[in-house]
């Protein structure tokens, strides 16, 4: 059994090829910066897509976990002089525990109540990060020292490019594996019909908790990387607006599609940069694009295009 014989293999190979070729086409560090942000957003969105797209549970608060990861890395490395890797792991563990504790009650909620619950959680996290200013620097944020692993300190956009690319490929690979496994089928079954899944022996609560915790930890790890890469973080990284951006990336790219999450992240990271040409009209155009896409490509970009490509009508 070849390890390459896996679901989504072609997509993964295409992604790797793109990553290999892309540096040749990026004129300067500014463009690398955008691509790195795409990568980081993609990683979070792949995790979030497991929750929203596959398990069918919405979260409007995932930036909160991203923010906790970022701040744990920032505070532990800068204020307490911890090694970056240890800080990152501790952040992920804390997020794992927090999300595990909160998952049971929150995953009992349905539809709009779940949206409200997760939104509230995210807002509370942002407020804590904003108000505990002795630790976090308050609303104006705090600087973060560079990343280091085994004494090596990656510096510069090109090095970070390859780091984020490697993490992204690994995340895509793991996500594709998970979706195609019995666990992945159980998750999708939860989305399809909780009652039916349950009568077939799927412990629905367990899987909801699992996927919630998993997506939260992925967000936390990406948050840590973001903090070290960008060098300066503010509570906005954990804010409602960021949570919304993440969900929008997932939905825009296409729910229940790992590559959709990547595509969505890419579009929504690049779009605001392109829209700066509209100056004052930036938000107006962005809102209109969002509404238009959701109306005309309801299932998201990648699934809609895939259907067109396969000549199917829906």
């Amino acid at each position, binding site marked *: 059994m070849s390890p390459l014989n896996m679901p989504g293999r072609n997509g993964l190979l295409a992604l790797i090829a793109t990553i290999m070729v892309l540096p040749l086409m990026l004129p300067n560090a500014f463009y690398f910066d955008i691509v790195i942000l795409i990568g980081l957003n993609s990683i979070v969105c792949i995790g979030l897509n497991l929750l929203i797209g596959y398990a069918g549970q919405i979260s409007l608060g995932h930036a909160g976990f991203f923010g906790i990861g970022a701040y744990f890395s920032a505070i532990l490395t800068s204020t307490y002089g911890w090694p970056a890797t240890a800080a990152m792991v501790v952040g992920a563990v804390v997020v794992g525990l927090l999300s595990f504790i909160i998952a049971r*009650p929150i995953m009992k909620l349905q539809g709009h109540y779940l949206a409200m619950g997760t939104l509230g959680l995210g807002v509370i996290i942002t407020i804590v990060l904003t108000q505990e200013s002795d630790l976090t620097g308050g609303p104006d944020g705090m600087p973060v020292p560079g990343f280091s692993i085994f004494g090596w300190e990656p510096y510069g956009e090109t090095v970070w490019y390859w780091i984020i690319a490697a993490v992204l490929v690994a995340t895509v690979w793991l996500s594709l594996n998970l979706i195609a496994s019995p666990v992945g089928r159980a998750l999708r079954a939860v989305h399809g019909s909780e009652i039916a899944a349950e009568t077939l022996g799927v412990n629905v609560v367990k899987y909801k908790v699992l996927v919630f915790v998993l997506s939260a930890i992925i967000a936390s790890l990406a948050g840590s990387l973001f903090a070290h890469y960008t060098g300066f973080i503010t509570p906005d990284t954990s804010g409602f607006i960021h949570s919304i951006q993440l969900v929008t990336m997932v939905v825009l790219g296409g729910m229940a599609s790992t590559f959709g999450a990547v595509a969505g992240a890419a579009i929504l990271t690049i779009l605001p940069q392109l829209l700066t040409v509209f100056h004052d009209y930036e938000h107006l155009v962005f809102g209109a694009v969002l509404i238009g896409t959701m109306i005309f490509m309801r299932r998201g970009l990648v699934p809609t295009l895939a259907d067109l490509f396969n000549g199917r009508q829906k």
Partner: protein
Amino acid sequence: MSADFLQFLFSGITVGATYALVGLGFSIIYNASHVINFAQGEFVMLGGMATVFFYGAGLPMPLAMAMAVAMTIFIGMALEKFAVEPAKGASIVTLIIITIGASIFLRGLAEVLWGRNFHSLPPISGSDPINIGGALVLPQSLWVVGGTIVIVITLAWFFNRTMTGKAMVASASNPLAARLVGINLKFILLLSFALSAMLGSIAGILIAPISLAYPGVGIMLGLKGFCAAILGGMGNPMGAVLAGLIVGISEALTAGYISSAYKDAVAFIIILAVLFLRPNGLFSTGGTERV
């Protein structure tokens, strides 16, 4: 001590009344369409901003207010027509993103029309505070509270006594049956957005002299109003009003007695606590899934 308490209470009731109006808007639209309209807070912003500018353009205040309300209602109806109706039958997440897209769009519109800066609006009847039991209350606060009471009573009358209002209630509880008896659901949907936009814009006009008007003013107000709507049990308008007041008063008391830093968290802590204990909201009776 008691004067302080009264001061906090009045402050809380004033803000709470705004949350109540926004929450009411959420509930009305939810009832008619099962859509959570995340652009609700933007109606509040539009009401305040538009009044500032109509007034600044030289219109007399009452006319400026009326124009602002009319303009917001028109925008609300356009939102329904061009963003919500075409997305009929889409999933909850998709609809949430559409309305969030609409809120970004409306904020962008306000930025283009009126700029991104803060603006103040003179209070309706002066700014000399009134002493009530040692607490100083602004006349504008009384306008906010009074306005909310009038609106709530009018709405109660509308839903219970008029044909159109009853039709809205009927189509909320059973759309199929409502259609069978000849109620025009499309019209009801449009009406619900118009009504919500009206509520939002009135809230925005009333609160603007207290909170200033700027494009971002609707974000937090919208979220708190959503809190109120959920707390009251989604689609339960009177529950939303009550919950809005509860949230506002809790906030003011927290700021006064515990910590002003965590004032904004209060609404969300309450909502999480309530959702964990009663997953369908504070004032809901709950239902069972039918298989």
